[in-house]
């Protein structure tokens, strides 16, 4: 089954060209906060543009400071050098006012691509919700105008439903790993989560997911496993996959869950299907427990729940260098982990390979102490 995802990943960049030729709007996104239902409802395809390797970082250094987050620099480098097919194919790029680094990067990106930035509030109270809802309405109008298509109640409801179904399946898939031993290796789950972002046909994606879940359930074995179980949290893990996720497995432990944008942040919580859809969409996205939010207490709560539900022994908090909000939250997550009975370690790193040895020693020591 895993092969299916691999094939899809290879196929998708051609697929994107076909979609473009068909005249489908291609909308580049950088964040789990991008309202994908609206893009779908206007007949568009949302593609993720977050870069995961260091090759383009140096290009970005012309304009961006060296001590900025590697994800932002790498993504910007790809945009400027026109080396990323997804970026090249995008008709517009949608951004949100999340962290300071991204916010300012969008300003520069606008010199190369049409960029639309939504004002994401940094709090989650009533007034924030009203502002965010307003932003979504403006974005809807912008999309209709830009792509000369109508977003109706019907096609928006269809978009909500299909995204809800996708989220439910993704959560079901990830939650299979609550079993002991976890049936899907962390590295494999990471690949699936990552590759599935590039399946543009939602119906096809849902079909593939269902088949994968069924096959995995068939093969659930009740074995005794003394492997230590680890939850990954913090910054996006795509760019440090080899250095951290793979390495944990090489050292004999299992990664059982991803509490980050690659994993649960992107898929937990559904959009209410009754009532004012735009407001429901606004509410769902404001539930995302991202560190950019003021008083982001939900994340610590989720970590505590996950430690119990996934029978986790340890939590590894990935902090990409220059990410202040996640770096500051490390203390809170450390306390939450200890409270729930798991060991905790934060790892500050970037996309380069120079600290691989040191990271390995830290991971090794962390696993030894579990």
């Amino acid at each position, binding site marked *: 089954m895993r092969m299916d995802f691999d094939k899809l990943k290879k196929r998708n960049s051609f697929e994107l060209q076909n979609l473009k030729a068909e005249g489908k709007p291609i909308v580049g996104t950088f964040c789990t906060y991008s309202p994908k239902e609206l893009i779908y409802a206007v007949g568009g395809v949302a593609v993720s543009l977050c870069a995961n390797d260091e090759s383009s970082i140096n290009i970005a250094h012309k304009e961006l400071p060296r001590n900025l987050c590697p994800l932002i620099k790498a993504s910007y480098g790809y945009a400027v050098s026109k080396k990323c097919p997804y970026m090249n194919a995008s008709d517009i790029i949608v951004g949100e006012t999340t962290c300071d680094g991204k916010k300012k990067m969008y300003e520069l990106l606008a010199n190369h691509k049409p960029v639309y930035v939504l004002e994401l509030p940094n709090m989650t109270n009533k007034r924030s919700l009203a502002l965010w809802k307003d932003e979504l309405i403006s974005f809807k109008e912008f999309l209709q105008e830009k792509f000369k298509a109508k977003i109706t109640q019907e096609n928006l409801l269809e978009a909500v439903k299909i995204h809800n179904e996708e989220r439910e399946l993704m959560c079901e898939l990830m939650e299979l790993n609550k079993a002991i031993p976890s049936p899907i290796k962390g590295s494999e789950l990471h690949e699936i989560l990552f590759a599935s972002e590039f399946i543009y046909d939602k119906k096809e994606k849902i079909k593939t997911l269902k088949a994968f879940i069924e096959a995995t359930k068939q093969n659930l074995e009740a074995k005794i496993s003394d492997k230590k179980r680890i939850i990954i949290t913090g910054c996006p893990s795509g760019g440090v996959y080899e250095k951290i996720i793979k390495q944990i497995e090489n050292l004999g432990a299992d990664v059982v869950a991803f509490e980050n944008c690659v994993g649960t942040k992107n898929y937990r919580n559904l959009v209410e299907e009754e009532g004012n859809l735009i407001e429901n969409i606004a509410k769902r996205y404001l539930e995302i427990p991202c560190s950019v939010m003021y008083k982001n207490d939900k994340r610590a709560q989720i970590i505590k729940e996950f430690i119990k539900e996934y029978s986790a022994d340890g939590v590894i908090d990935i902090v990409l260098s220059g990410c202040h909000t996640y770096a500051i939250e490390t203390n809170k997550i450390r306390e939450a982990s200890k409270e729930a009975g798991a060991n905790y370690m934060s790892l500050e790193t970037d996309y380069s390979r120079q*600290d691989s040895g040191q990271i390995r*020693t830290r991971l090794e*020591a962390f696993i030894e102490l579990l």
Partner: protein
Amino acid sequence: MYLIGIDIGSTSTKVAVFNKNDQKFTELFLRPTGFSGVKIADEIYEILKEKNYFPSFITATGYGRVSVKYANFTTTEILCHALGANFLFPKDCTVIDVGGQDTKAIKIVANRPEDFIMNDKCSAGTGKFIEVMANRLGIDINELYTTAKKNLNIKLSSTCTVFAESEIISLMANGVDKTQIAYGIIDSSAQKVASLTKRLENEIYFLSGGLSRVSLFKNLLANHLQREVFTDENAIFCGAMGASLIGLKKEKS
């Protein structure tokens, strides 16, 4: 039967030999690592053979642990330092080890390592910092420790090895005495180590590793931490001793 711990650090290689029969360390010895981990590992093997320490269970640790092909088990220096320190100083504390290329702190609660931190990709606050500075002064590292003379007006960067080096160049150009610069170097390291280990703050500390023999460093570290820092004459062997003790458990399984 002997349990042997070999700790290959970037500067020196430490060996601890534990006699299982009388449950005591029979020998602790040290050799400079040199440029090759493999070569020193072979040398140690010959020494152990000469001294008749076989049959034995050998545990290797330190950054050169992979070079010890004849080891029965390998493990990280973090766990070893914790166990070795706890053997010499059986109290709840934070163990600080300033190594040749990493500095680490390990918090010990109820005789078990509970948490640890290491320096990031930066050499300030490690043995390397002091080594580079001694080279710049043109003196031997031991001379730097023994001749250091207090002058609180001489302050050096505690966050960057490269900047500290250029600061030294200008201090020397201004005719400041080497001994006073030496004091500034040790103080700057102690300050950096204290700030690195801040997250594992504790009531008392135990200093292991090579710098445990430098009383000026220990005292300055205590000043910056504002806490009492303990050590032991054999604290330099903590990693190797811890490795031997791990063998005690591993050898059975």
